[in-house]
């Protein structure tokens, strides 16, 4: 087995929510390593902790316990400002409901991500964006507002927005959950293409078993724990991992 680099790792990751007087353990010690350039799917039934895991991996929330290492940096110890910076520079999000800004055109939605990132025009960024739009087949949709786009087109714009700044990891939460089967297939193929063409690390969170066919690896969760991993990363496989 060739040596690889773990871009993302969780160690005994825990998250407990307080609902009224009751503590709910959404994650009960998740240990996970994701290889760089990997296209992985995290699956499981509703309430198993998938979305919570995604929020923690995406630096959207702080864990109750354990560690989340992105490129060796523990984001669990970071404050809000530092986690925001991680989201800006290392993470791309794709949501089930697309979450495009309705007041902006498709181009505006993508530009907003570049503005927040402070991505300068030139330096190859425009060429990268043009290539992305070609790959996602939305070049001619850029002037339209989300309300004038189909669900599939909206999701492709959301994907373009998520990867325009070349994030280290793309996290997609039920990306096909709001799409019909035809558009789901298109979107999933695009994730596959992004992974192959741009070596983009992608983690899909879903409860749809069909989605697994498009990924390199299937991680199954239940009751806040990883219960099955089709291609786990062993210690002997890791070349550089900072813990």
């Amino acid at each position, binding site marked *: 087995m060739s040596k690889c680099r773990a871009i993302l790792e969780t160690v005994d990751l825990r998250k407990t929510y307080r609902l009224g007087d009751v503590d709910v353990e959404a994650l009960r010690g998740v240990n996970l390593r994701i290889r760089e350039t990997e296209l992985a799917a995290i699956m499981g039934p509703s309430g198993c902790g998938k979305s919570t895991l995604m929020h923690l991996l995406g630096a959207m929330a702080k864990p109750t316990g354990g560690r989340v290492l992105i490129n060796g940096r523990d984001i669990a110890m970071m404050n809000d400002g530092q986690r925001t910076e991680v*989201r800006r520079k290392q993470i791309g999000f794709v949501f089930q409901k697309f*979450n495009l*800004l309705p*007041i*902006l055109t498709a181009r505006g939605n993508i530009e*907003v991500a570049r503005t*927040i*990132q402070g991505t300068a025009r030139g330096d190859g960024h425009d060429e990268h964006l043009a290539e992305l739009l070609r790959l996602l087949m939305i070049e001619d949709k850029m002037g339209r507002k989300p309300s004038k786009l189909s669900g599939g087109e909206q999701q492709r714009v959301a994907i373009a927005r998520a990867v325009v700044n070349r994030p280290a990891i793309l996290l997609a939460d039920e990306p096909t959950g709001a799409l019909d089967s035809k558009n789901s297939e298109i979107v999933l193929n695009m994730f596959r293409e992004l992974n192959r063409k741009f070596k983009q690390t992608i983690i899909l969170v879903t409860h749809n078993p069909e989605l697994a066919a498009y990924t390199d690896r299937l991680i199954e969760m239940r009751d806040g724990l990883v219960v099955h991993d089709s291609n786990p990363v062993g210690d002997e496989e890791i070349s550089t991992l900072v813990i």
Partner: protein
Amino acid sequence: MIFASLISRPVRTLVSVLAVALEVTMILVIVGLTTGIAKESGRRIVGVGADILLQGPNSSYMLALSSGTLPVAIGGKVKSDVPGVKAVAPVLLQTNSQGGLDLVYGIDPVSFEAVGGPFHFLDGQMFSKPGEIVVDDLYARSKKLRPGARIELLSQTFTVSGIVENGKGARLFLPIGLAQEMTGAANKATLFYVKVDEGQDVDAVKTAIEKFLQGYKVTRMSDLMSQMAPSKIPGLEPFLRTVVFIAVAVGVLVIFLSMYTTITERTREIGILRSLGASKTYIVVLIFEESIVVCLLGVIVGVFASKMVAGTIVKVFPTLIVTMTAEWYLKAAGFALLSGIIGSFYPSLKAAKLDPIEALAYE
């Protein structure tokens, strides 16, 4: 993003812009009216053409507040006994509150014109018969008067004998004898306008009058002008500060309400921006910028509206003067922007504090 947001909520944007415009208009028009009227009063007094104003002891610079307590004979004594005095004109002031608030000069036309030069008659002539009155052109226009027209003033009916160019102290002129008769102040005057001989030092003559009439109030006309500056008028500054405060309060409340509601409407948008890595500062600046754009649009609309309102006021009430200075344009714009900053302060902090996950889940 800012403009897209404003355009996407046109009613909210329009109401906010109009509210800021109202704030700007309120400041500019009220300040313009008060300062305009004060300045114009001063200009009219200077327009009399005198060099010195002689009043009784403890008299006010606000001429309308003075009463007729000086014997007319003082004027003759000053002219004959004080060297360097060319002419002295006694004036008995009356304030008419019928159909408005007007200062009426009771004058002796000969001595009045000897002090400040002849009246410029635009129509008609000087009063010569009992019950006649001379009015200035602005008063005539505001009341639609022509020579021969009858007007009710000071509880009497007068006939307009002539219309003169404005700027000679008052807008209404009566014979001083009639004014004295009406007020029961026989042979009395409120004040005297004094003209010094050509080439005479006004200060020297003023000092000589002060020596001659000890205790009387003797003022150079140029000093009187500075005394009549809006900042010197009792109560005007607090009044203007109150107007500005109310206007700014209106602006602050409207911007606050507008931004507060927009934060609620845009919770999900803010969540999206936060998920994209927008910092809290980015969100605060975004809200601030949006409110500043609203305020700037409000300033532009407010300035145009102020000009329209001022134009309408002057057209409908020709005797009113609205003076809008560059200083007050800047101040009004500053107050509008200040209200935008204050009004959006809390909403922007509230937006920045939103939890990205909760914001994204907001429906």
